[in-house]
Each structure stands twice: as C-alpha cells, then as structure tokens.
C-alpha cells in the first residue's frame, strides 16, 4: 500500500463517519457538520485520484485538483445557506431539531415574524 491508497481509505472512512453523523444526530447543526465531514472524505478520494495522476513533472493531476477547489468552495456556499436556514428555523420554531414531533410542538407565531410563517401547512 502506498500513501495515496492509504489516504483513499481514510477518505472512504471519513465519508462513512460523516454519513453516520448526518443520519443520527438530532441537532441540525451537527448534521451540517457531519455533512461537511462527508464532503471532506469525498474530496479526499478525488485528491487521491489526482495524486495517482501525477505525470509530466507535476505531483498531481491539476484538472482534478481544480475541480476539488471548486467543490470546496461550493460546499462552503451550501453550508452557509444551510446554517442561515437553520438559524431562521430556530428563530421561528424555537428548535434546532428536524424531528416532526418537535416542529409540531413548537409551532407558534412569533411577534414580528413574517405573518405567513408558522402556518406553512402541517405535513401530518
């Protein structure tokens, strides 16, 4: 086994860890964090493929490295949007858990918020 293959296995393990955390944690911010771990694992595997593509005097395949850079930035944009959504959810529903029961229990109109909020139609 060489370094690149080892890091590929690390990336696979990270993806598994991230997926487990994404499903199991009730608190949505920890889900977002686990999602980022999952992403890091996937990017690591892409980086391993890039490393194995070392040729022509370069230590890695630059096209794939450029794609990974793009991926990291887009993942950050998605995380920022997800966190903003979560903060708004916490502000209106007073909960950070996505569990249906928590939402139904907490759904009450908050003064000053959008008048259409809190009545988005229960999914029951």
């Amino acid at each position, binding site marked *: 086994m060489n*370094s690149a*293959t*080892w*890091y*590929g296995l*690390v990336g*696979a*393990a*990270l993806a*598994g*860890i991230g*997926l*487990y955390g994404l*499903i199991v944690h009730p*608190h949505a*911010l*920890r889900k977002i*964090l686990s999602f*980022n*771990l999952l992403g*890091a694992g996937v990017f*690591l*595997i892409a*980086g*391993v493929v*890039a490393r*194995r*593509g*070392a*040729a*022509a005097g*370069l*230590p890695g*395949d*630059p*096209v794939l*490295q*450029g*794609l*990974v*850079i*793009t991926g990291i*930035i*887009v*993942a*950050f*944009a*998605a*995380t*920022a*949007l997800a*966190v*903003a959504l979560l*903060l708004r959810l*916490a502000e209106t529903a007073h*909960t*950070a*858990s996505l569990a249906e029961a928590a939402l139904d229990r907490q759904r009450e109109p908050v003064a*000053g*918020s959008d008048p259409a909020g809190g009545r988005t139609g229960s999914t029951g």
Partner: protein
Amino acid sequence: MNIVAIGLALDLAFGLLALAVAVFALRARTTYAAVVGFVSFGVLLALVWFRLGAPDVALTEAAIGGGLTGLLMLNASAVLRATEAAAAAEPRRPGVRLVALLAAATVAGGLAAAVLALPSPAPTLAPLAVAGAPATGLGNPVAATLMAFRATDTLLEMVVLVLALVGVWSLTRDDLWGGRPGRRHQADSKGVLVFFARLLLPVGVVFAVFLLFVGADQPGGAFQGGTVLAALWLLAIMARLADTPAIDQRWLRFWLIAGPAVFVAVGLAGLAFGVGFLGYPEPWAKPIILAVEIVKIVSVGVTLALLVAGPPMRPRGDDR
C-alpha cells in the same frame, strides 16, 4: 530508513489523527466542542492535501474548509445554545442508529473497494495541462485549469456564491430588509482584539494581494486571497473597527456582481474575437486573466464575508 518509508509512516500518522479528530467531532457532547474539533480537522486535512501534492487545495481547505466554515458554525452554535438541551433530550432510537451504521459501513466499504480497484497506470490529464499552460502565460497549472481550461466551472462557481448569498438574504424578516447583518459586536476599544486587528489588517491585505499575484506561477490564487480578505473584514467587524454594511447599498451590490459580470463580459468578448466563449487570444491571455482575477478577489472576499455574516438582523440606521 529511506525517505519513502518515513513518508509512509508520516502519512499513516496524519490519516489516523484525522480520523480520530473526525470521530471526536462526531461524538463530542456539546456542539461547541464538535465545531472546535471540526476546525482542527480542517487544518489537519490541509496537511494531508500537502502530502497529496496539492498545495492549492491545501490553501483552500485551510482557509475556506476549516477557517470560514468553522467560523460560520461557531457563530451558529453560539446562537443555538438554547436549543441544545432539547436536542440532547430527544429519545435515542436504536433502529435508526443501526440503519445509519449499516448505511455508513456500506458507503465506506464501497468507496474503499473503489479506491483499491483504481486502474493502474492511472489515467491523467496532467500532460495535457502542462502542454496547454504556456499558452495562458501561467506557470501554475492549477491556476491555468481554473482560469482557462475549466473557466466555465469557475464562472459558475462565482455565480453559485452569489446565489447562495441571495438565498441567505431571502431569509430576512420583512421589516428588516435593507438592514445590517449580524448582531452588533461588543469589543473593548483598548483591548487585545482591537490591537490584534489593527496590526493584522495591513499585513493581511498585503498577504491577500500577494496570494493573488503569486498564484499565477506558484500555489495561491484569487479564491485564497479573497478568503483572506473576507476573514480580515470579519475580524474588523468583530473588533468594532468596522460594521456590517447595510445590504441595500449600491457599492456592496456592485462588488457582489462585479466578479461574475466581468468574467461573463470577458467570455462574451472571447466569442466576439473568435476564440470561443471564455477563450483568450494568446498574447493577451495573462493580462486578461489577471484583470479578471483582480476584480474576482474583491468580489469573492465581499461575498464570502457576507455569507458568514448572514441575513440582516438590525435596521439600517443601527450603526454604532
């Protein structure tokens, strides 16, 4: 001991450490501890990227993946502290845990099998990139990839950043539209943070510009420089040397779209000059790319800082 064995031992250590920190971030009792673990993980991952021969990716991971994402989640965990108890009190469902474990094991196993089955000799685009780079005038093949070979990807990525910001802003309360993001910060004007910010800001700006210009031939680039600028602005806001801008200001909106707009304009000009969308006529390639990157670094810095700052939470007139 030969250098390859030492390198492999180092890689084993880095990989195991990264996995350990990731497991800690997964299982930490409080969200704050988990986020701190995540930031440490990001920095370790940057080291791993260096070991994989990808210094540009290492810079991006340390700055955006670890730094800005960590800052974002740290702010959120502070705001969400009141919801922690309720989330922790939720009943644990062993059925869900088992399914999650199976799913995680399947995915991890499948990816590991794929990694072990990668073809050898590995297919690569490196020779093509090296052959095409001199035409762009850039010595860093990753920069040539981002700005020339896969320029459409970069353009779309900048547009995605602006779209994400529009999404974040759309969460504003109706009566606060046009206001300032984030709460007002408390900072002692004679304190340590202000001293640090005052010292670091000029150094940091020079460093960001350095990253931009050195990125043409060595690891660096406009995204990394833009991240440094965003971090500096956020530091100034935290130290109360500046305040978050009201989001309806023209100069702000100008700089948000200036980067993608200039990039699109250059692309269309390429069509007009017969070199294709986002093509560059050869003797003009490097000056054009540099001009686009100069606008891009400011645009990216502003967008990233505003993404971290969040939707407006104070009315426009609420300045210190």
